[in-house]
């Protein structure tokens, strides 16, 4: 027989019960991922399409031909038996995203002006120079790397889009997503669903994707919400991380270092003070109990 009151062999020791209760109430709340972060987004532009999910998505009313053309176009056979390796290529690398422009003209043109398109251009040049597909963890994104043409849904709220966005951008910019979520903007926007707060694109632009390393650009981004912002205001560090930071960006490296050092000093101080006083209280309680029990 198991139970706290049970006598005999099956009795659960109080220590064990306390241990599991502590795990349950103290550890689990932090270890459990917060809602809204955990669900994996069905990303990816693959050769295989789940038509049921496709039908529910934003493009669900389009026929395949509207984006992919008919099989009779050009002089290529479809499927092209002479270029079987084509099928092994990544769909998001070979699809001609110029076709998105037909409907999404603004987005497409902004993308061409933005940092991601510049990075893609450089990557293509490198590929031509080296003669093979570029490898490495971070590659410049095409439309299909951020958006799923087959599965992304429409009519989402700003908060829903924003939460998904942090995940999508975070795939490549992990440190930025993490620091954003530690920042007040991220906590308000993603965790608490405050649509007045800023998501990634509210500062960096949806398709321009500017880095905001230039002060003037940063100030314009801040000013959209903080009308009183001054040049100094842009020194505020939203992403205290050195990932992707230029080696010669001394100024920001210095600020990040200051923030990290102060955090470290403060955490040592807090731990030292708390450990000392908790120990003090604990010993005091033991002594008081000892005195009490001895008197009676």
């Amino acid at each position, binding site marked *: 027989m198991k139970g706290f009151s049970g006598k005999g062999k099956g009795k659960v020791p109080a220590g064990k019960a306390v241990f599991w209760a502590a795990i349950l109430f103290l550890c689990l709340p932090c270890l459990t991922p917060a809602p809204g972060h955990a669900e994996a987004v069905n990303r990816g532009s693959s050769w295989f399409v789940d038509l049921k999910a496709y039908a529910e998505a934003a493009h669900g009313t389009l026929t395949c031909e509207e984006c992919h053309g008919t099989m009779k176009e050009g002089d290529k056979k479809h499927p092209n038996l002479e270029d079987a390796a084509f099928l092994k290529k990544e769909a998001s690398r070979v699809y001609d995203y110029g076709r998105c422009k037909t409907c999404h003209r603004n987005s497409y043109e902004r993308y061409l002006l933005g940092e991601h398109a510049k990075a893609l251009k450089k990557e293509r040049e490198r590929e031509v120079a080296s003669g093979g597909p570029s490898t490495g963890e971070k590659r410049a994104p095409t439309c299909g790397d951020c958006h799923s043409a087959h599965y992304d849904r429409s009519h989402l709220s700003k908060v829903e889009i924003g939460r998904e966005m942090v995940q999508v951008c975070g795939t490549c910019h992990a440190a930025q997503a993490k620091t954003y979520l530690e920042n007040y903007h991220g906590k*308000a926007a993603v965790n*608490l669903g405050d649509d007045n707060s800023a998501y990634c694109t509210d500062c960096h632009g949806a398709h321009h994707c500017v880095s905001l390393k230039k002060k003037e650009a940063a100030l314009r981004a801040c000013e959209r919400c903080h009308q009183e912002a001054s040049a100094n205001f842009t020194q505020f560090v939203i992403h205290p991380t050195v990932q992707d930071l230029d080696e010669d960006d001394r100024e920001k490296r210095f600020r990040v270092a200051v*923030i990290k050092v102060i955090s470290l000093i*403060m955490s040592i101080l807090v731990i030292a003070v708390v450990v000392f*006083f908790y120990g003090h209280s604990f010993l005091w309680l033991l002594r008081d109990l000892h005195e*009490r029990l001895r008197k009676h």
Partner: protein
Amino acid sequence: MAGKSERQEAYERFCVLHRFLHLVAMLGFTGLALTGFSLKFSAQGWAQAVVFLLGGLDHVRYLHRYCAVVTYACVVAHALWLLYFKFLLKGSLTGPQSLFPRFKDLKDLFQHMAYFFGKGGQPRFNRFTYWEKFDYLAIFLGMNTMGLTGVVLWFPEFFSRLIPGYFVNVAQVLHVYEAIMAVALKFVVHIISAHLRPEVFPLEKSIFNGKTTREKIMREHPGEWDVICRGLEETGSEVPSEKL
């Protein structure tokens, strides 16, 4: 005094203002901790539940600032009282019976710790023991630093005109760590040492009704009792010598 036994003579330990300020600061601090931590730990379900129950992020933000203003008003009121005590009542803010830290507090701390391990007796505490002084000073100084960093976070546009923008980051770091320390100390250490230890369990009422007894002073603050006995009010101590 007529209705009470001779031995239960009541003394006033805390005046009305101090009791009131303690009560307001206590409520304000709890409100600050609740609203502040539900923003800090907003990734977790309980925090989201608190924010929902309080009516959304905007309300939580408002409540945090409301509690901050009320709590800081206590600091201002107390600072004014200190001036009043010093200049009109001609009291001493640094004497042995005051809350000012003295070398004796360090000695008391070591002696008390030795007592925990069964070596020697308890120190002869004055009107305020070392842990009471720590509680008081930590809150008094802490509220000022929390207020200062908090106000920077409240008006970042204004303050970034005066100081570099990344000082707002620094203010944020200091605000968060100090909040964690304050909550860890006040809600655990202060409550144990002031209320929950077997000697005073379950509640030390004197901070709420101001009253203490002769026995209590003799037992907990023998140094203060000596002063009362010697009738040395004019030494500039903060002694509540008037009997109720």
